[in-house]
């Protein structure tokens, strides 16, 4: 009898529609703990929806979604909060709270969801801001930050509760090559230091080749390729080969 650890995230025949538009169609995949999965696909093929389904901001029409040992599609309230605490989500546009300073953006979840003292909250927020290179900007408002800084701030907020699973929606979109590489380095550092599971939605093939242990390719709501970069390079799907070749 093998003793395989449960997957960090697993989709079991998941479908999701918005009105008549079928966005995800019978998708099954799993991501092991500590693994980095990059999801590639053309715009509107359900990549961001996949992330929102994982963190239960959306519910699937059919299928089951597992986060470690928990099936989350029927969870609400405190149970769902417990599961979400395991995850952090970096939004495409960072989704920083625009009425709060950068420091308060990070302190808010710590103050509300942990029993930490104000000194501990400040220490942790400063530490994470330091990790993403924003220690000197903690009193700035989100509107005062550049695109790259906002991404790093969004990443800092996603990391502040020390999630076991980090979801990132287009972490390098709108950034120059150097800044995008810095974001990739931060993600890789998080994986290496904390064995964090990474699920990254991206159009950046260079970044995906660097960060991903495995790649999943979505096309018209279907999973058309799934495997290592080399496997997807040799996939039967034209779309997958075209996307991964950049």
């Amino acid at each position: 009898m093998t003793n395989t650890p449960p997957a960090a995230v697993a989709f079991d025949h998941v479908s999701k529609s918005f009105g008549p538009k079928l966005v995800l169609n019978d998708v099954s995949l799993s991501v092991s703990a500590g693994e980095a999965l990059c999801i590639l696909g053309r715009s509107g093929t359900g990549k961001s929806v996949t992330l929102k389904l994982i963190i239960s901001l959306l519910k699937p029409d059919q299928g089951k979604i597992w986060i470690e040992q928990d099936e989350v599609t029927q969870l609400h309230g405190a149970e769902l909060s417990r599961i979400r605490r395991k995850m952090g989500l970096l939004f495409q546009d960072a989704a920083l709270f625009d009425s709060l300073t950068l420091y308060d953006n990070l302190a808010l979840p710590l103050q509300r969801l942990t029993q930490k003292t104000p000194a501990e909250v400040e220490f942790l927020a400063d530490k994470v801001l330091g990790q993403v290179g924003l220690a000197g900007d903690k009193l700035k408002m989100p509107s005062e930050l550049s695109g790259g800084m906002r991404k790093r701030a969004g990443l800092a907020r996603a990391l502040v509760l020390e999630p076991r699973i980090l979801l990132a929606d287009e972490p390098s979109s709108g950034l120059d090559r150097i800044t995008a590489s810095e974001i990739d380095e931060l993600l890789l550092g998080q994986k290496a230091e904390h064995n964090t599971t990474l699920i990254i939605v991206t159009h950046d093939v260079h970044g995906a080749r660097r960060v991903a242990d495995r790649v999943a390719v979505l096309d018209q709501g279907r999973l058309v390729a799934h495997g290592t970069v080399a496997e997807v390079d040799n996939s039967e799907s034209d779309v997958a080969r075209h996307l991964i070749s950049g």
Partner: protein
Amino acid sequence: MSNVFEITGKVSFFALRAVVDAFRPPFEGGQIVRQLAEVGSRSLTLVIASGFALGAVMTLHTRSTLVTFGASAVIPTVQALAFILEIGPLVTGLLVAGRVGSGIGAVLANMRATEQIDGLESLSIDSFKFLVVPRIVACTLALPLLTLFMDFSGLLGGFFSEYATSRLSPQLYLSRAFSALEWSNFWPPTLKTCVFGFAIGVISTFFGYTTNEGAQGVGRAATNSVVLSSLLIILLDVLLIKLIFFVFPESAL
């Protein structure tokens, strides 16, 4: 027509959820105080200025008529009755609906469009309890306080207008203003503004929080918040006056 019933049902459910969540821990004391300050600071100057101007103008209008009948002595009484019973609560409600309701609708709709609400949820923070409930509570508590400012700035405006014409002393003006008023006339209309505040809070947070139309939804949420809050305030005013007369018959003059 079915759309009206659908919206009414959704808003009613939204309001019920807000009431239940307001009494469910953890309580959002800090957020409520912050929102109360926000509602107050946004509206206070407007309420005081409007009250003062309305008071002055109303005195000018009523004076010419009452002097004809030799009843200029009752100008302060008419002024006080008009403001405390009706003008103060109603105008404050409409001003706050325009000033604060549109702001709440736009802010929440913008937070929805820029995924800030999803951001809260992703951090396991109950966005409804954190964003909606404090705003509704703040509107409910702020309206009676703002109505007091409206009432007294209206009387002040009336006094200055009267003083400029007849040199009536402040003491005599106040004594005549409150001669026909009892506490039973004062409390029910002032407290009915809690209902107005609740309505403004519910309508504006509903349209802001539930919008799903991106940037376009921000403008629509702001407009819907103002229009429907204002209409609802006028409708509630009629219903509440009947209710007040029924529950507090002594308040009917």
